[in-house]
C-alpha cells in the first residue's frame, strides 16, 4: 500500500470507529434503560464488590457489582408493579451491557488501526500525533484504552456510557473541525522525544479523563445516598456505592499523576532543552501543564485532609480535568506560544 492508500484507510477506519462507538453508546443506553425499573443490588459485601469481581458466573466484559444484581437481586419469577418480568429485564441489562463492551473493543481496534495507518500515511512514515486532529484522535484512544485496561480490574462497566459517548464526541469534532490531510512533521517535532513526551501525556490525560468521570459520578451518587427518598432503581441507584466510586477515582488518578509528572515535568523539559534551549520557560502550554499538576497534587492532598475528603476532592479532580481540556483546546487553538502545532493555520 502506498502512503496515500494508508491515509485513506485511516480516514475510513476512524469514521467506522466513530460509528461503532456510537453503537456501543446506544447499547449502554439500552442497558440502563432496561435497568430502569430493576431494584439496585442489596448493599451486601460492598467492601469487596468494587475491586473484586463477584462470582456471578460472569466471564466476559467485566463483572460489575450490578452483574451480581442481575442474578442476586432478582428472585425467580419476580414481577414489578406493571406486571413486567424482572428476570427478562435483568437478562436484557446483562445482554446489552456485554454488547456495549464488545462493540467498544471493536471500535477501539478500528481506532487503533486508524491511528497506525495515519502514521504510515504520512510520507515519510511517522508517529501519528503531529497536529491537533491527530492529538484528538490519539487522546480519545488513550481514554478508551485506559477504560478497557481497567474494566476488568475495577469493574468499570458503569462508565461505558460515558467513555463511548466521549469517544464519539471527540472523534466527530476531530473529523469535522480539526481534520488536516496526513503530511510531514514540522521541524520542531523531529525528535524521538515526540514519542516519549506525547505518549506519556496521552496516557496521563486518558487516566485523568476516566478519573474525572468516576469523580463526577461519585458526586452524583453521594448526593443520592444522602437523600432519604432516593430512588432505588435506575442508573444512579445501580451505580456502585459512593465510597467505591471514590476509591476507583482515586486509584485511576493515582495511576495518572506520576505519568503526568513524567510527561510534563521530565520528558517535556528535556525536550524543551534540546529544542528551545531552556528546559522551562513558562510557555502557555507549560504553564497549564504545571497548573494541571498543581491541581492534581491538591487533589491527592485533599483526599487526606479532613473537610476536603469526598466532595471537595472530587470537585478538585473535575477542576483538574478542566485544566487538561483547556490546555488541549484553549491553548492549542487560541493561544500563542511555542507549542503551536495544531496545523490549522
Amino acid at each position, binding site marked *: 500500500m502506498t502512503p496515500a492508500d494508508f491515509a485513506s484507510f485511516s480516514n475510513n477506519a476512524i469514521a467506522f470507529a466513530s460509528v461503532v462507538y456510537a453503537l456501543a453508546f446506544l447499547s449502554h443506553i439500552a442497558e440502563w434503560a432496561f435497568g430502569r425499573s430493576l431494584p439496585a443490588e442489596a448493599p451486601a459485601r460492598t*467492601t*469487596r464488590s468494587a*475491586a*473484586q469481581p463477584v462470582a456471578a458466573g460472569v466471564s466476559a466484559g467485566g463483572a460489575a457489582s450490578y452483574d451480581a444484581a442481575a442474578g442476586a437481586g432478582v428472585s425467580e419469577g419476580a414481577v414489578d408493579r406493571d406486571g413486567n418480568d424482572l428476570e427478562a429485564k435483568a437478562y436484557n441489562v446483562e445482554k446489552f451491557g456485554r454488547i456495549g463492551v464488545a462493540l467498544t473493543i471493536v471500535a477501539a481496534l478500528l481506532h487503533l488501526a486508524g491511528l497506525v495507518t495515519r502514521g504510515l500515511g504520512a510520507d515519510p512514515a511517522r508517529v501519528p500525533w503531529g497536529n491537533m486532529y491527530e492529538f484528538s484522535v490519539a487522546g480519545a484512544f488513550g481514554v478508551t484504552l485506559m477504560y478497557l485496561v481497567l474494566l476488568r480490574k475495577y469493574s468499570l462497566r458503569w462508565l461505558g456510557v460515558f467513555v463511548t459517548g466521549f469517544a464519539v464526541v471527540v472523534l466527530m469534532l476531530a473529523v469535522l473541525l480539526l481534520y*488536516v*490531510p496526513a*503530511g*510531514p*512533521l*514540522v*521541524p*520542531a517535532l*523531529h*525528535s524521538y*522525544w515526540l514519542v516519549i513526551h506525547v505518549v506519556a501525556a496521552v496516557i496521563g490525560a486518558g487516566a485523568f479523563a476516566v478519573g474525572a468521570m468516576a469523580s463526577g459520578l461519585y458526586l452524583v451518587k453521594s448526593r443520592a445516598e444522602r437523600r432519604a427518598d432516593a430512588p432505588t432503581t435506575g442508573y444512579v441507584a445501580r451505580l456502585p456505592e459512593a465510597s467505591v466510586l471514590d*476509591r476507583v477515582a*482515586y*486509584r485511576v488518578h*493515582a495511576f495518572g*499523576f*506520576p505519568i503526568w*509528572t*513524567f510527561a510534563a*515535568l*521530565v520528558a517535556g*523539559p*528535556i*525536550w524543551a*532543552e*534540546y*529544542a*528551545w*534551549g*531552556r*528546559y*522551562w*520557560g*513558562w*510557555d*502557555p502550554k507549560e*504553564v*497549564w501543564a*504545571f*497548573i494541571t499538576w*498543581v*491541581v492534581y*497534587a*491538591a487533589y*491527592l*492532598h*485533599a*483526599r*487526606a*485532609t479532613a*473537610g476536603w475528603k469526598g466532595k471537595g476532592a472530587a470537585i478538585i479532580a473535575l477542576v483538574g480535568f478542566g*485544566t487538561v481540556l483547556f490546555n488541549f483546546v484553549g*491553548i492549542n487553538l487560541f*493561544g*500563542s506560544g511555542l507549542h503551536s502545532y495544531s*496545523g490549522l493555520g
Partner: protein
Amino acid sequence: MSASTDTAPSGTSAPPPPPPAPPALTPRELGRWAWRQLTSMRTALILLFLLALAAVPGSIIPQRNIDAVAVGRWQESHPRLTPVYDKLGLFSVYDSVWFSAIYILLMISLVGCILPRVRTYWRGFRARPPKAPRNLARLPESRSLALDEEPSAVLERAGEALRRRRYRVDIGEDSVAAERGYLREAGNLLFHVSLLVVLVGFAVGGLFGYTGSVIVVRGQGFSNSLSQYDDFKPGTFFGPDDLKPFNINIDDFRVKFLRSGQQAGMPTDFSADVTYSEQPGQPERTQKLAVNHPLELDGGSVFLVGHGYAPLVTVRDGDGNVAYKGPAIFLPQDSTFESFGVVKVPDAMPEQLGFEGLFLPTYGFTMRTGPFSRFPDALNPVMSLLAYHGDLGLDDGKPQSVYELDKSGVEAFKRKDGRPLRVDIAVGQTKTLPDGSSIRFDGVQRWVKLQISDKPAKGVALGGVLLAITGLLASLFIRPRRAWVRVRREGGRTLVELAGLDRSSGGNLADEIDELETQIQQQATPQKEKP
C-alpha cells in the same frame, strides 16, 4: 461570652463591664500559632490553589521574558491598563513578588510539614509491629477458623506466610503481629524533599545562567561577547565577563517548505552548517545545527530557533555615490514570511535616507489586500517600501531599534498626487527617487536566529524530578498494612482468628486477608521440587 453575662450584676441598670480581654499572646506563642497554621495541610492546599491561580495570568498576558515584542504591542493597544499591569508585575508574573511569595510560603509550609514527619518516621522505622488488639473481630477485615494442628505450628505457618508477603513479623506466645509498607512514608518524604532540590536547581540555573539571542546573516559570524547580542538576559549573579569567548560562523543555511497540499507552506526541514572554535586560536570545527540538534559548547549551548530573510540592497545618494550596500534584516510577521524591516542610510548626502516596508518572498497582489506573500520560500521576492528623507536621529546618541525607523525627523517622498511614494522592486530592479537617489534590490540572503544560553545545575533539577517521581510511586503504591493472627485451644481444636488493618485508603485488604486465610488453612505440604 457566657462568662460576661454571668458576671453582670443582676437587677442593676449599670451596663455590664466589658468582657475581660483574653491574655495577650506572647511573641513566642504567636509564632507557634502562625507556624502551626502555615504548616497545616489546609494551608498547603490553599497555597497550592493560589499557585495554580497565580500561574494563569502569565499564560494570557504577554510576558517580557518570553516575548518582549508581544508585550510592546499589547502595551500600545492598552495604554490605560499598562501602568496598572506594570505595577502588579503582570508582564513578568513568574518573577513577581506575589508569585514568589506564594511558592516560598508553600516551600516553608512543606518544610514545616515534613521536618516533624521525618523525625517521627526515623523513630517509627525500627519499631516492631504493634501487639494484637484484644478483639480481632472488631477490625475492618477479620476471619476465624478452626484447625486440628497445634497452635504453635499454625502460628509458625502464619508468620511464614506473612514474611513471604514482606511483612515485618513478631511471633508471640499465642499471636502473630505483622506490619508492612514502611517505605510508603519514606517515599512521601522523598517526594517532598525532592521538590526542594528541583527548586534549588531551578534557582541556581536562573541566578548563574544567561540567555541571549542574536540574528546572524548567512555567511557572517558571531563571537560570544555582550555587544554582539540583540537580546541578552543574564541571571542575577552572571556578569558579562563570564561569557566564554567562542566564535561561530554560519556557513550555510537550508530550508525546505511543503510545496503542495492543504499544508503547503509548512516548513519540513531547516538546518545550518556552522564552523566554530571554542577559544580564539583553537582549531575550527564544523557541525550541522538544526532544531533539536543544538551545538553544545563550554559555557553555553547554541540553538537554532528561527530564520528569515535579509534582502541585499544598494542605495546611491543624490550625488551618485554608494551610501549603503549589504543585507538588511527583515523580521517575518507570519507563516508566509511576509517580513517587515527598515534600511537606514545615514551616509547619504545631502540628506539621510530611510526605507521602511515589507519583504515578500513570493509576491502576490489583489486589489482588496494589496501586496502580500503567497508562499514562505523566496520564489518571486519583491520589496515594497516607503522612502523617507531627512534626519534619522542617529546622531543624538539616543539608542534606537535597528528594526524601526524614527520618523520624527524624516519626511516621506511624495508622488505627484501628494500620496506617499511606494517603491515596489523585484530582484535586479532599481528605482530612482525624486531627489535623484536610487535603491537597487540586489538579491536575497537568509539569516538565522541563534539562541545561546547556559543554565547551570540542569542535572540537579532533573535528578530532583526523577527522585520526586520515585518517591511519588512509593507513596502512592506501597500500602502500609497491619495483620494479626491469634490462636487458642478450644474443645480439642485450634481456633484461629486473623484480622487486618489498612493504614492507607484505596487498598484491597479483603483479598489479602482471604489469601492469608487460605494459606493458614493449608496443611504444611512438602515443597515441590523444581524439575
